[in-house]
């Protein structure tokens, strides 16, 4: 929680600073773009968070994004698959890939880094081979389908208001169920967010209230809710954390650790596949050798920035999503503030490092203070 607040602070800081220097940042158009990119990368990050929580890693995400991105137009345009069939096929493939990784890692005991590094190489090569290195795209057809990535069905304010209202309700229900009444913190937070969302409609009807929510944002919200529910409230989620910290302890407790770990890799690859579909639909032009390169690193970086520990057993969905947002906002600011683009990587790298270092320092200081005080 503490970690999540820290990264949330970083996000707010980055947003406010950029908006002050260049007000274009808060234009509806720009915010929509930032939100769309955040959502696309956020989906990948949520996936890899599962794997990271088990103490593993998935380096093949970028290649899966590339492969799926190549196959989807290939199947639809060249082989005449219907959109549903094509999407089904590539998502099925992604699940199979995750299953394959999971089986190698659990049943054969291979190291996740190695298995997925080989995946990184293999799927990239296969994508290039199967397309003969030809750029793939949907051309100008399939506009409806592409709406999945480019559509903007509602406004951000509405969706956030709905979310906050849902959270309020849930907290009340939870309080009743656990017979301790709702907790004040969550109630206040959810209430404030709800009111803020409504307030934009009143005070800035032509501005922020107009920012529409891109379809990937809604998709990511659904995924994040499901993932959050799974991690926090189900037995499976609890097992995931236990496995990440102490695999033997989990096994001795009778947990079917293999199944859970395999599940994590399947979830990761499936979300990479879904992300791949959305990326392809959004960009509409997929170059087999390049599409998705390094995305695994961005996804992992976002997850780590959001509080996942690569040692396993730690991480929250909220944190991960905020981590992804920080990275995209940074990219966006670099462009809006007209900082030389060559420095882009440097700035991102430096901010991530400063973020985790500050987090660590704060953690230490707090621990020392608490110790002194008690």
């Amino acid at each position: 929680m503490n970690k999540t607040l820290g990264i949330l602070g970083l996000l707010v800081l980055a947003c406010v600073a950029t908006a002050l220097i260049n007000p274009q940042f808060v234009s509806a158009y720009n915010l929509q773009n930032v939100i769309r990119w955040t959502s696309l990368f956020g989906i990948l990050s949520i996936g890899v968070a599962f794997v990271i929580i088990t103490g593993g890693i998935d380096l093949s995400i970028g290649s899966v994004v590339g492969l799926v991105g190549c196959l989807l137009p290939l199947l639809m345009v060249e082989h005449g698959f219907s959109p549903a069939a094509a999407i089904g096929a590539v998502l099925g493939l992604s699940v199979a890939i995750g299953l394959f990784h999971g089986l190698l890692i659990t049943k054969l005991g291979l190291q996740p880094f190695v298995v997925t590094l080989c995946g990184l190489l293999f799927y990239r090569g296969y994508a290039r081979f199967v397309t003969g290195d030809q750029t793939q795209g949907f051309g100008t057809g399939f506009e409806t389908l592409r709406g999945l990535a480019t559509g903007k069905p509602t406004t951000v304010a509405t969706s956030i208001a709905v979310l906050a209202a849902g959270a309020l309700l849930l907290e009340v229900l939870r309080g009743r169920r656990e017979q301790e009444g709702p907790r004040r913190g969550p109630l206040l937070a959810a209430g404030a967010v709800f009111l803020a969302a409504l307030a934009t409609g009143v005070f800035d009807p032509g501005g922020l209230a107009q920012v529409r929510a891109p379809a990937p944002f809604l998709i990511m919200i659904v995924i994040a809710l499901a993932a959050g529910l799974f991690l926090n409230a189900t037995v499976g989620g609890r097992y995931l954390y236990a496995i990440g910290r102490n695999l033997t302890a989990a096994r001795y407790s009778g947990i079917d650790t293999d199944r859970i770990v395999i599940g994590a890799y399947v979830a990761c690859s499936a979300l990479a596949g879904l992300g791949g579909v959305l990326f392809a639909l959004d960009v509409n032009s997929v170059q087999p050798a390049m599409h998705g390169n390094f995305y695994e690193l961005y996804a992992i970086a976002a997850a780590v920035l959001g509080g996942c520990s690569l040692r396993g057993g730690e991480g929250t969905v909220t944190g991960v999503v905020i981590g992804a947002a920080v990275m995209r906002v940074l990219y966006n600011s670099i462009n809006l503030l007209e900082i030389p683009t060559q420095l882009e990587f440097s700035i991102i790298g430096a901010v991530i490092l400063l973020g985790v270092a500050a987090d660590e320092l704060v953690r230490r200081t707090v621990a020392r203070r608490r110790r002194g005080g008690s």
Partner: protein
Amino acid sequence: MSSRALLEVRGVSKSFPGVRALERVDLHLDEGEILAVIGENGAGKSTLMRILAGIESRDDGVVAIDGEVVAPESPREAAGLGIALIHQELNLADNLDAGANVFLGREPRRFGLVDRGAIRAGARSVLERVGADFSPDAPVADLSVGRRQQVEIAKALSCDARILIMDEPTSSLSRAESERLFTLVRALRGRGVGVVYITHRLGEVTELADRVVVLRDGRNAGELRGDEIGHDAMVRLMVGRDLTVSDTRSAAGPGSVRLKVEALATEHSPQSPLSFEVRSGEVVGIAGLIGAGRTEVLETLFGLRPRLSGVVSVDGVALDTRGPRQAIDAGLALVPEDRKRDGLFAEMSVRENVTITGLTALSRAGLLDRRGERRLARDLVERIRVRTTDIEQPVATLSGGNQQKTVLLRWLAVRPRVLLLDDPTRGVDVATRHEIYSMIEELARSGAAVLFASSDLEEVLRLSDRILVMHEGDLAGVLGRAEASEEAVMRLATGARGGAVG
């Protein structure tokens, strides 16, 4: 043999590369019986229990429950058969709280979701039963080793198993908590549960067991029941001969002050600064209930935890405790409490494990003298009979007690000026324990100051020239050899003040 034993083991054998851990072992357990299984380190006790719990496979033999042959292949299956095992080593997920660990793998659910309320309530009651003084919401990462052991025990108790196997459950519990556990175990017996109890504290066996099965070198060495159960009889069966224990403490009085601790404030109990000293040639024990802060004192002295204030000096020189490196340079050594986490290089060989602290002395012109290293390792291993196929065996494959010995040897080899030991004989068998005692005494005789913590009161009384008794981070009192008795220690440990502090 009763007609229909609750658990019956017939002719079970198990080999590992180079050792025959179990050879045609038989065992049976009735409902409502407490069966103690004892044997020297490496006799095969844990291996047998791991087989019963579905963790290890067996090469040969039959296991039957209620007369029905079973072959659990995973902990999950074993649990399904009503078998619960408290492991010799701690196995907790320390990113979760105590309650979550107690119910790990068996979470109560509501609408498919984890029922946190039920977990908290269930864990609270079972933790109370084992006498734990912490809440189920306490993160395991913040618990001392003894308290973690209580979590492990609570976890096994909460299964409502018919067969409860306890592999050295009290190895880091002090007398008070152990008593509490015995009451629980007896209550379980009353309810018809069969309990297999493994320990190296033979006093516990006499107190608790209905029957004793002795293993030696992986074979049945004999069985004792009722009145036959006595210290000497058990030792004879375990070792195969009588053990002559020389309890001769050297009369040579202690020398000058070696370790001086003044107003030391530790991380978790900063408000009660400690002062004491240990003289050269003196063996000082620290006693206390679990969580009393013994480990904390030792680790703070060794530079592993921050020293909030106070002065520590060795031979009059103030000690720089930025880290263990500085402590070691000042002549300190610490044998840690949690051997698995802090002591062992599990996949490395016995040789590499025992020589790691002495390597610099073994190198010539920057290069390692391998022959010298092998010689040293062989010498050490023979000194307290570490049971290994050869010195190249990975320590992970040693029995618990033998692992403990390798960690001890590492420090006994370098002859420190101040030796700090935290539960040094945890899980070590009776025979070897005495060898270790004489090594410690010999070290003291040669001028070292020894400060050791132990949860085994017998050990504290046997070994100490003086006893520091701790209570909730405080030094509750100091007892000289003459005034030391079980009652005196327990009185201080449970909070009553007394004795000369200083």
